[in-house]
């Protein structure tokens, strides 16, 4: 029953609301990133926390960049809150800023303790830059490249001598004869006019060049020459910058994006001498952060699912957590320009903090200093205040009412009775509970329906786990990223996510006993990764260390990629056998014959061919591997979680049967053969020794 006086506008408004959906219904459901964010976002909720976080982020926005000293030291800020307090929504609201500013938000889905921080973040950042952004629908690297190329072109023209500018316009023979007397100023001014028009913030660069009746190819040549003149030296950073900027120029001016993506995917490592893997990754990371800084884009590394990161096989892993803190502490000491945001449940963080030593604690609590506030290292999401809930109610209800003439005459708490917030306990709880109460109260007041009695939480045994896991699977597979070398870490994490729940996993007389998600091999920071699988003979004592690698390098990078994988056997050999999974674009049974010539040459020259198996993997299977960490994240937050291990095992075995088949059978057969050869060999050696 409505408790409002018998008032005309109130009744009209109630009648309108009765014909509309409950505006709190969708808010009360747990959301995840990019689900109708703008429909659900209420700026008044968590406004203070969001403002504070945006201030922290803006401290990383460099107004003027002249060198790494202008980049703030990397710092960690933790956002603490209970489950349902709006952490994920807060993270997403950072991307949808109302002031029009933007930033690069990297959201790692896994953590690998075996990788140095620079390699880990470099891979994450490269993937984030080359994939279309959920908010802007464009690839960040394209947006970053445009102002950089504009600036390069401007500097290129300005640094040219006056006669160079004349010759750049390729005067004809007669014009050159005429230029012996003079008349070059007109040509010179043509390029100078373009340089003047290249002030920051202008329109489309190609269009601008066309408007000045200049050739795009000429501009590309000028910038490349300028890079050769000014970005000199054989140092790693100079080489990386020359190649990165050159690829950006081609992407922006010639619309050839492939060289830039290939460069970010891993071709960058070809510029450096072998043996400097870590330095190369650090320099490449710096070059990318610098590009972001030049476009005033702070780089945010946001970990929003710490439960998953700290867990192995759905169990909290203390040592993994300790590694995580130490890696972050190293990042604080050794990198600049990165802001790490941790979105964590209060209970989980308390537990995880127990694994933080004093070295890490000192660094992680340094915080980001803000004007008139001091350092901010931790932020706690508090329950919404009555005023914020009041704003939420007014905002949502008025949106439902539409253009009602007497809307200003409605009571402020409409459709709820006056004093509702104080008496009904709708405020003072965490955000999701508040929204659930509002939904029920709205249903009662507007639809005059009695609220449902809260159902008792289902026991895990009663849940249809297969359906729950399937729905989590469907959601995880929604993202349709194209697998590339910048996703290699993610795929290896997916491989571990696939295999770890199955341990111990038996196949053909062998048993998989351990999985190491990533093992760094060789000198290449991107391509030099394999997963290590430890197999044991079920009946004998034989073991087999099996490396699994993905061949995803493209064009010239492919041969380098294969070479990096074969470094698995470089002395001292890291294992016994190697499977290289490759998604060829052409059909054929003999994969070696399908390899491009340069890659084939690397294969043919390798002495480890007999210990390496090249196998076809479909792109759809690679996508599954990429999505598996996300799926595990969903599984962790399912109602009734943790899911029973048996249910997860059965689900994975069924859904990933082909993948599992790919990873085991053929090579284990070879291992069997090898064990036989070894035993035969040892027998013959013994016989030989006996004869002598």
């Amino acid at each position, binding site marked *: 029953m409505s408790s409002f006086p018998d008032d005309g506008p109130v009744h009209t408004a109630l009648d309108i609301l009765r014909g509309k959906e409950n505006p709190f219904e969708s808010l009360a459901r747990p959301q995840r990133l990019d689900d109708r964010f703008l429909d659900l976002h209420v700026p008044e909720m968590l406004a203070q926390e969001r403002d504070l976080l945006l201030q922290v982020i803006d401290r990383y926005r460099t107004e003027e960049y002249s*060198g790494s*000293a202008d980049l703030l030291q990397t710092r960690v800020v933790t956002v603490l809150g209970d489950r349902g307090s709006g952490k994920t929504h807060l993270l997403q609201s950072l991307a949808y800023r109302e002031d029009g500013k933007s930033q690069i938000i990297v959201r790692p889905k896994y953590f690998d303790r075996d990788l140095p921080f620079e390699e880990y973040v470099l891979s994450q950042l490269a993937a984030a830059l080359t994939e279309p952004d959920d908010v802007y629908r464009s690839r960040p690297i394209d947006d970053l490249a445009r102002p950089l190329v504009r600036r*390069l072109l401007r500097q*290129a023209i300005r640094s040219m001598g006056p006669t160079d500018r004349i010759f750049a316009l390729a005067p004809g023979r007669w014009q050159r004869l005429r230029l012996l007397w003079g008349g070059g100023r007109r040509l010179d001014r043509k390029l100078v006019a373009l340089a003047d028009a290249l002030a920051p913030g202008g329109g489309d660069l190609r269009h601008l060049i066309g408007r000045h009746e200049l050739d795009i190819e000429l501009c590309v040549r000028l910038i490349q020459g300028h890079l050769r003149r*000014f*970005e*000199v030296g054989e140092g790693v950073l100079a080489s990386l910058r020359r190649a990165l900027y050159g690829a950006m120029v081609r992407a922006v001016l010639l619309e050839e994006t492939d060289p830039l993506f290939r460069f970010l995917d891993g071709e960058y490592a070809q510029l450096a001498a072998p043996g400097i893997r870590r330095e190369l990754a650090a320099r490449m990371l710096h070059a990318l952060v610098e590009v972001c800084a030049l476009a005033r884009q702070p780089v945010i590394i946001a970990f929003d699912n710490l439960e998953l990161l700290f867990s192995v096989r759905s169990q909290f892993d203390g040592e993994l957590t300790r590694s995580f803190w130490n890696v972050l502490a190293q990042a604080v000491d050794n990198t600049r320009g990165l802001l790490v945001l941790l979105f964590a449940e209060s209970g989980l963080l308390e537990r995880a903090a127990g694994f933080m030593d004093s070295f890490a604690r000192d660094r992680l609590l340094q915080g980001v200093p803000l004007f008139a506030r001091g350092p901010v290292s931790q932020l706690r999401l508090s329950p919404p205040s009555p005023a914020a809930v009041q704003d939420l109610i007014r905002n949502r209800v008025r949106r439902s009412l539409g253009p009602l003439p007497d809307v200003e005459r409605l009571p402020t708490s409409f459709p709820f009775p006056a004093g509702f917030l104080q008496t009904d306990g709708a405020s003072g709880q965490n955000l999701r509970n508040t929204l659930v109460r509002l939904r029920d109260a709205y249903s009662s007041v507007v639809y005059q329906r009695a609220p449902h009695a809260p159902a008792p939480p289902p026991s895990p045994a009663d849940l249809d786990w297969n359906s729950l896991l399937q729905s989590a699977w469907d959601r995880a597979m929604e993202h349709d990223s194209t697998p590339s070398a910048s996703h290699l870490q993610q795929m290896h994490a997916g491989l571990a996510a696939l295999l770890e729940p199955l341990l111990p996993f038996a196949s053909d007389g062998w048993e998989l006993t351990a999985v190491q998600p990533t093992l760094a091999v060789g000198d290449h920071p991107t391509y030099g990764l394999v997963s290590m699988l430890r197999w044991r003979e079920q009946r004998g004592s034989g073991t087999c260390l099996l490396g699994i690698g993905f061949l995803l390098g493209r064009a010239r990078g492919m041969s380098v990629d294969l070479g990096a994988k074969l470094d698995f056997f470089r002395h001292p050999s890291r294992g016994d056998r190697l499977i290289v999974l490759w998604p060829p674009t052409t059909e054929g049974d003999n994969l070696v014959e399908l390899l491009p010539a340069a890659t084939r040459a690397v294969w043919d020259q390798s002495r480890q061919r007999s210990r390496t198996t090249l196998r076809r993997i479909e792109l759809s299977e690679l996508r599954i591997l990429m999505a598996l960490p996300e799926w595990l994240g969903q599984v962790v937050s399912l109602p009734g979680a943790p899911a029973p291990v048996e249910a997860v095992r059965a689900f994975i075995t069924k859904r990933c049967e082909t993948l599992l088949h790919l990873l085991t059978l053929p090579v284990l057969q070879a291992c069997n053969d090898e064990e036989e050869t070894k035993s035969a060999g040892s027998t013959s050696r013994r016989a030989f020794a006996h004869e002598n």
Partner: protein
Amino acid sequence: MKTESIQRTLAGNDPHGISRALQDLTPDDCTIVDRRGKPVPLSGAGYVLHFGRAYHLRIVSPFADDDLQEVCLVSAPTFLTTAPAFTDVDENGRNVHVLPMRVTSDWLSIWSLLRRFGLGIDWDELEISQRFKPGKLRDAKPFLCPVVARPHWSVLLVLALFGVLALFVQKTLDHVIDPEKGDRLDALLQSLQRWDSWALMFGGVFALWCLVNSLNLCFLYQRTRELRRNYRETYSS
């Protein structure tokens, strides 16, 4: 052996400073104007200067005045004499560093004298350096600005005088060979009153002018090719 002090540039304390390709290191504008403030012509061999004239090299620096110690020419070409730089405001209201200079040549050198009379031209590059105050931890690569110095219309005057002189010499010789021909001066004056003598003289002067100019153009063309080759080496794809 006498010792020599060198000036070393502080490179700054940031080993990962921004790429020099992105920095404003070269002048925003560099022009040469004559005494009246009129920009000099720009040819394929550089800015065209004339012997005996004074010019101002105007530099708009991208650096703040507080950072700069001076803008100067490093080892100015021998055919230029320079004066100390000063700052001024140009017609567009920009602060400019003005380097006064004059194109001269050594009167004692025969080759310079010939050049001054129109035979031959001079060229070089102005190496413009922006020097920073101590402790500013900045440095900028010198900016190169090609110039070419060549004779002005004086060549015509010289050639005309040369023509009259040639006529005088011819009459003198005639008189020496054949003294019966009368007074030298009379003969010369008579010749100057005849149109065919003038035609001959101007024809000769014109031919010589063409020859000298052709020669100069060859030199200029050679210089232009050299600069064009440098451009291609730097900016070829």
